[in-house]
């Protein structure tokens, strides 16, 4: 058994930042990650970091833009914290050596991004995430923070009280991918989940293959609710053949979208008469697909993004990486021809419910980054707001877990008296409950084992049995089959445009996947670097996460942010200014709601029509 004060699971931007913060606060901290830190998906972020740095801009404008962008589903205390902390945290990255793009006077450059009232996106070429990831890892090396890389965390070691709010998290159980060894990691102060997004629930995604919602699923199984999972962002500009991301920076610098008639459709068809290509992502993604659906798409599949007029010098200075991506993955020369783009799954606005200190309803369990929902992004995340989220809330979770006083949180978590009960939505199948429970859940021993070691040992034992079973079983279904069926269902039915009928079909298929998973087996008998085993467990996580996305999408019968519903195309503020919460309860998901907090420190954000 390994033992540390703070255990951070996942070593992307949020995990690394959390580890550095916990180290600064004096804790003995360890990072446990299924990838080596520099392989994390933060490295693929391109655009930049929003932070009100310049004169004329201020954090209140950033907060306002973010609330508006969220379609009033962001919680004001979280949004204001993001906007207030981002400038200092961004400058700190510069102090740590981040190679930001520069102005003539040597200051960091900022550029316009969609939905922003001021050009406040700080960037390093079109590879900002790569630099952020490496700079953060450098800080971890500098501080000598212990890294367990290529250790796959499978489960949380939590106590099993009936009410999740009474549970405590004492650590995690992981296996060493290289050797297959299973170990408990005891956390004396806290566990921070920073495991990234669940993009692999969809088959056309900008996300890495490793983005399988592991943290989501572990927290969910342990009893922490997942919040606003229906809000999935589809990035308007991904390459059609691979899903590789073409940064919003292209539009920020002046890139133009055209349909097959050569029309600048954002204006021609009135999708965003003021902001055009720089409307927020949900608006642009819907516009593109509408063009395709109405027969004005190129090859009936995509639209064109043109940056040729920006000139070679500007492109090379600020968007060089985009030229390489278009060339390598689509065979297109962005200097002489427009690039094909279409919407692709990109980001999960929802995630593990936390407060503004990163804490979940389970004592000692924290979450930060894309796997968490504070919530700052509400119904739609603005471009350039993911990276500040990583550093701001990664830092806060690390500090808080290490015992630093960040003040009382205003956001509540877990089931409490401020929540509104269950939905009366008509569910097509009983989700989750299929007789057999693929989710594992909290190992029940009737609260007998109270001490941390005991809880951990019990969870290690459970994990060991689980892995032995999967490897020793010598026939059945393979995970790849189930995973691709799940991905296809999500892309077919829980995409940019959603109908009740479609979502119900998706839920039925997810249920089938859950049932097929009962018979899953790992064909590779080896304990050495068994990726077959790892992917089998990831697939289980994806089933859980996909189910919450589809369930959330089904019950939210309104149109808000990225969540478009054919049956009800208006934003229904009277009934739906609330978060959807789904928690795993005795082998099935249960749904409840919590009101959005629109009261900021000094003002209340009144919902207005979002026009761009």
């Amino acid at each position, binding site marked *: 058994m390994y033992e540390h004060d703070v255990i951070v699971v996942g070593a992307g931007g949020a995990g690394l930042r959390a580890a550095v913060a916990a180290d600064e606060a004096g804790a003995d901290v360890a990072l446990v990650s299924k*990838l*080596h830190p*520099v*392989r994390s*998906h933060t*490295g*693929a972020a391109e655009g930049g970091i929003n932070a009100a*740095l310049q004169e004329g801009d201020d954090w209140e404008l950033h907060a306002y833009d973010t609330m508006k962008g969220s379609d009033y589903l962001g919680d004001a205390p979280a949004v204001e914290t993001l906007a207030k902390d981002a*400038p*200092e945290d961004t*400058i*700190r990255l510069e*102090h740590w*050596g981040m*190679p930001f793009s*520069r102005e*003539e006077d*040597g200051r*960091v450059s900022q550029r316009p991004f969609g939905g922003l009232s001021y050009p406040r996106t700080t960037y390093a*070429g079109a*590879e900002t995430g*790569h630099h952020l990831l490496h*700079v953060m890892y*450098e800080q971890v*090396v*500098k501080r000598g923070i212990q890294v367990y890389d290529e250790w796959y965390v499978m489960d949380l070691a939590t106590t099993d009280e009936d009410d999740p709010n009474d549970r405590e998290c004492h650590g995690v159980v992981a296996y060493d991918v290289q050797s297959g060894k299973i170990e408990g990691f005891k956390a004396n102060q806290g566990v921070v989940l920073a495991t990234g997004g669940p993009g692999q629930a969809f088959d056309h995604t900008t996300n*890495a*293959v*490793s983005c399988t919602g592991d943290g989501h699923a572990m927290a969910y199984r342990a009893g922490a609710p997942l919040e606003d999972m229906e809000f999935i962002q589809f990035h308007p500009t991904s390459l059609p*053949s*691979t899903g590789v*991301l073409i940064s919003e920076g292209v539009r920020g610098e002046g890139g133009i979208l055209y349909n097959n008639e050569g029309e600048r459709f954002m204006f021609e068809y009135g999708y965003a008469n003021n902001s055009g290509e720089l409307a927020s992502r949900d608006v642009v993604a819907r516009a593109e697909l509408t063009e395709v659906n109405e027969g004005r798409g190129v090859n009936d599949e995509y639209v064109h993004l043109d940056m040729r007029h920006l000139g*070679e010098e500007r492109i*090379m200075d600020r968007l060089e990486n985009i*030229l*390489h*991506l278009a*060339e*390598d*993955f*689509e*065979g*297109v*020369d*962005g200097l*002489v*021809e427009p690039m094909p783009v279409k919407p692709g799954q990109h980001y999960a606005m929802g995630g593990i419910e936390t407060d503004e200190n990163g804490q979940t309803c389970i004592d000692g369990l924290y979450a930060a980054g894309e796997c968490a929902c504070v919530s700052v992004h509400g119904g739609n995340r603005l471009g350039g707001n993911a990276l500040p989220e990583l550093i701001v809330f990664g830092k806060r979770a690390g500090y808080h877990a290490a015992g630093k006083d960040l003040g009382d949180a205003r956001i509540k978590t877990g089931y409490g008296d401020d929540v509104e009960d269950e939905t009366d939505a008509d569910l097509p199948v009983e989700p989750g409950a299929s007789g057999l429970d693929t989710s594992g859940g909290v190992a029940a021993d009737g609260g007998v084992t109270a001490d941390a070691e005991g809880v951990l040992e019990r969870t290690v034992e459970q994990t060991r049995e689980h892995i032995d079973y999967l490897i020793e079983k010598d026939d059945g279904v*393979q*995970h*790849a089959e189930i995973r691709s069926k799940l991905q296809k269902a999500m892309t077919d039915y829980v995409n940019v445009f959603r109908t009740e009928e479609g979502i119900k079909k998706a839920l039925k298929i997810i249920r089938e996947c859950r049932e097929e998973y009962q018979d899953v087996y790992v*064909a*590779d*008998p*080896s*304990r*050495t*670097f*068994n*990726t*077959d085993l790892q992917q089998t467990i990831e697939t289980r996580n994806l089933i859980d996460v996909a189910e919450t996305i589809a369930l959330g999408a089904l019950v939210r019968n309104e149109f808000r942010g990225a969540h478009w519903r054919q049956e009800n195309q208006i934003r229904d503020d009277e009934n739906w200014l609330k978060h959807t919460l789904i928690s795993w309860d005795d082998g099935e998901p249960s749904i409840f709601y919590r009101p959005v907090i629109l009261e900021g420190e000094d003002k209340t954000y009144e919902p207005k029509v979002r026009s761009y």
Partner: protein
Amino acid sequence: MSTQQQKPETQESPEDPEMKGAESPQQERLKEKESGMVDERSADESELDGETVHIKVFRYDPEVADKQEPRFDDFHVPFKKGMTVLDAVMYARDTYDSSLTFRHSCRQAVCGSDAFFVNGKQRLGCKTQISELEHPVRIEPLPHQEVVKDLVVDMDHFYDQMHAVEPYFQNEDTPDASDLEEQRQSRENREKVKMSTRCIWCASCMSSCNIAAGDNEYLGPAAINKAYRFAMDDREGDEIKEHRLRILEQEHGVWRCQTQFSCTEVCPKDIPLTEHIQELKREAVKKNLKFW
């Protein structure tokens, strides 16, 4: 295939006097690529459409009886336009043999985990179009690194070398972050270090380097490039630069490089690694440091 390529970096950045006139291998390679000469076989993709691609993949697992003796397995993968080497091995794994093991994640050339030895050259699987290769395509783990299983190599030595150059920014003299006061850096200086900051730690360069293969202690091109990234960054002061050069001029440092350019040739991010090493040698000489 389009012929666009990036403008050679040196046209924008201040050129080193000694390199003037002579074209770097990187520039030559870019030119070759422009003229299409680099393709081993400029296959017309439509010719391949509907066909299968024959890949031969290296297999080894110390734990499994019939894989303890290294061998090649043959897979015939249906070709689709745009298919990369990574796509092909993923297809083979998901369809034919789920025990086929390799690292991969972002599939967009930034996580650096899928560097393989493909037809005798270090390449990123995700970035290599299979139609551009001679068939059958041989896919092996990176040479000069211990094989853990199939295409997975042990990266510990590579990470150790990276860590040996103190790969973190060192300037204690920064302004106060709460005043939102950043350090100033000129555009020229950023341009100078730009290529060096693009390293994705894929270890292709290290694997291609004859010297590193023969001298286990040699820092190697990736680590030296990492040191270059900081040593040439004006935000770090002169004292730190000197400290960095002392690490680099040690016996197994920059002087081990014999300017064979193999690292530069295989770098998937087009970092002029050899030039960076040469430049650091000159810096070391200027500082009157030891010459091994």
